[in-house]
């Protein structure tokens, strides 16, 4: 739920509840107040009549009076009792329906006879008044609350604007690009603090990124140079005479180890570079063309190991990514397929609309999920001492960088690695 809706919703609920409670409350309060007023007027009338009874001297006077005043009725023969007030519904000939009346009934004594006197007052006008008052009040309430809501919403929108700008900046932040995001100035202290904090975070992250990048390059330089020195000294050692077979064997072992060290260093740097997003340039890469070329390059190594490679290319698969990384991805999958194969063995490479699948024969059991972890090497009897243990970790990192989906499966004694390039609509 959006922030604005959230705050507005509380107001809405509150307004609704208040409306629900106040309208009936209002109705009953006014109604009882009106009734009270009517009752008081009835009582006053009764009192006035009693006070003026001395003006009536005969039965005829009484009848004439009661006939003239439609609001009073006189009933003969009553026992003395106290005044009572009640609401009754009487038929109104003019409106042809029953209408509410308030009546006071009390005993009066004229010339020694006791009469029951009933004074009534129509409540129809009161009800009409009540209705009008209620209507106006309800309208007022609705207008008031609606207005408050709208104003609140508009103000909130304006007040939260810097927040949304900041939010958008955070969303669009990319580590490998120096952020020149613009923040909206705000007179609200918290937002100014937030903007400053985010801005500082951006610049600090970028600085750290630069430092790390620099460190990566420095580490590369620092390690490559001693590796080069060692390599070259070994080559000079090879030229020395006399050279015994034992020495030659040792030199060869050292050279192989040093090469492995060099590969390991290169792989680690590559991983660091991928993780630091240092491969910025993306272009449309034709995976099929790349795969054809790479298979060609490795065909010799494969045939040397008596491994046959079967290629099935349904069509040209193009993805938007960094060319070198896609190349490394295919090379790593293929070298693994050769390295962890058996002799004789086979490899199938298939490309269809969105996926690249590299399958190979090898051990007859599925591999552990840990194969994607760094330095994990499958425990098998097949001789594969020279891998760096980083190949698949690099593949996985490349896939994560470009949102490709990487999957491993074991079927029909084939180990299959599948890369789905369309996971994020990179494929075109």
């Amino acid at each position, binding site marked *: 739920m959006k922030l604005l809706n959230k705050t507005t919703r509380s107001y809405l609920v509150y307004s609704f509840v208040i409306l629900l409670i106040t309208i009936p409350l209002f109705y009953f309060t006014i109604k009882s107040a009106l009734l009270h007023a009517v009752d008081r007027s009835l009582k006053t009338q009764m009192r006035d009549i009693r006070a003026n009874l001395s003006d009536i001297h005969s039965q005829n006077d009484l009848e004439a009076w009661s006939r003239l005043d439609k609001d009073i009725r006189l009933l003969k023969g009553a026992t003395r009792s106290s005044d009572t007030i009640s609401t009754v519904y009487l038929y109104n000939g003019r409106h042809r329906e029953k209408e509410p009346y308030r009546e006071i009934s009390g005993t009066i004594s004229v010339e020694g006879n006791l009469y029951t006197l009933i004074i009534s007052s129509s409540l129809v006008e009161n009800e009409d008044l009540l209705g009008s008052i209620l209507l106006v009040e309800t309208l007022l309430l609705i207008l008031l609350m609606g207005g408050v809501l709208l104003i609140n919403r508009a103000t909130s929108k304006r007040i939260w604007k810097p927040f949304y700008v900041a939010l958008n900046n955070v969303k669009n932040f990319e580590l490998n690009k120096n952020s020149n995001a613009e923040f909206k100035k705000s007179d609200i202290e918290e937002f100014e603090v937030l903007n400053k904090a985010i801005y500082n975070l951006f610049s600090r992250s970028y600085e750290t990124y630069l430092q790390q990048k620099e460190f990566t390059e420095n580490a590369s*330089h620092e390690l490559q140079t001693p590796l080069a020195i*060692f390599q*070259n000294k070994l080559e000079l050692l090879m030229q020395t005479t006399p050279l015994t077979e034992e020495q*030659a064997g040792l030199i*060869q072992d050292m050279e192989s180890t040093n090469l492995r060290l060099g*590969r390991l260093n290169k792989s680690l740097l590559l991983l660091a570079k991928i993780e630091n997003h240092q491969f910025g340039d993306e272009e449309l890469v034709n995976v099929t063309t790349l795969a054809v070329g790479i298979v060609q*390059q*490795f065909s010799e*190594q494969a045939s040397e190991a008596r491994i046959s490679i079967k290629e099935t290319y349904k069509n040209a698969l193009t993805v938007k990514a960094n060319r070198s990384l896609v190349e490394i991805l295919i*090379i790593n999958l293929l070298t693994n397929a050769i390295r962890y194969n058996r002799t004789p063995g086979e490899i199938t490479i298939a490309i269809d609309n969105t996926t690249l699948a590299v399958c190979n024969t090898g051990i007859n059991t599925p591999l552990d999920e840990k194969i994607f972890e760094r330095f994990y090497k499958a425990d098998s009897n097949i001789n594969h001492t020279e891998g760096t243990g980083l190949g698949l970790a690099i593949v996985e990192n490349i896939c994560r960088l470009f949102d490709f989906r990487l999957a491993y499966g074991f079927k029909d004694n084939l180990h299959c690695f599948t890369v789905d390039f369309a996971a994020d609509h990179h494929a075109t």
Partner: protein
Amino acid sequence: MKILIIEDEQELLNSMLTYLRGENYVCESAASYEAARQKIESFSYDCILLDITLPGGNGLVLLEELKTDNKTSGIIIISAKDSITDKIKGLDLGADDYLSKPFHLSELNARISAVIRRRHFSGSTVLTFHEIVVDLIAKTILVHKKPVDLTRKEYDLLLYLALNKNRVVSKNAIAEHLSGDSVALFDNFDFIYTHMKNLKRKLHQAGSRDYIKSIYGMGYKFEV
């Protein structure tokens, strides 16, 4: 042939000097930006090996100066930064080649000969080793003046060994040379045996003596 090696790492410099002097090159060295600049201004070289990260300055700046001064030296950048951007930048600035550390001395030597050959058009385009003649332009070889049909890999192999004649060239160096950049990641170098076997057979059939000696399985030497 005169070579200037600009490299601040003393041990690396020593190794290069030892190997290249053994190839009868006249070698000089500079260990800093300033020293390199002075040498470049005062003398001329057939080939300059240039490290990019130098104390006192960037090697690429030296490269720019060399190019604006219209010096004809061939330039090979030797860099610890194995970055494509740097490589492209270096080659754009006019370097002839780019070698990233660590490298094989035999590879460096082969690249130097290639650069020098390209720079000196007047120079010989054939290499002769007794009955074997390598035509560098046509990329063919003749044994007893008769052409021998070699595959591209076999030709490259022979040339690589011949350029490093009388030197032990390790199997790893040969494998990396033959397979190029990407396959350098690969560890199985057995495939070179096949090429070696075929090359030796073809040379033998053409009547050549066996100049390629295997050195205890560690590498090969072209002995003339």
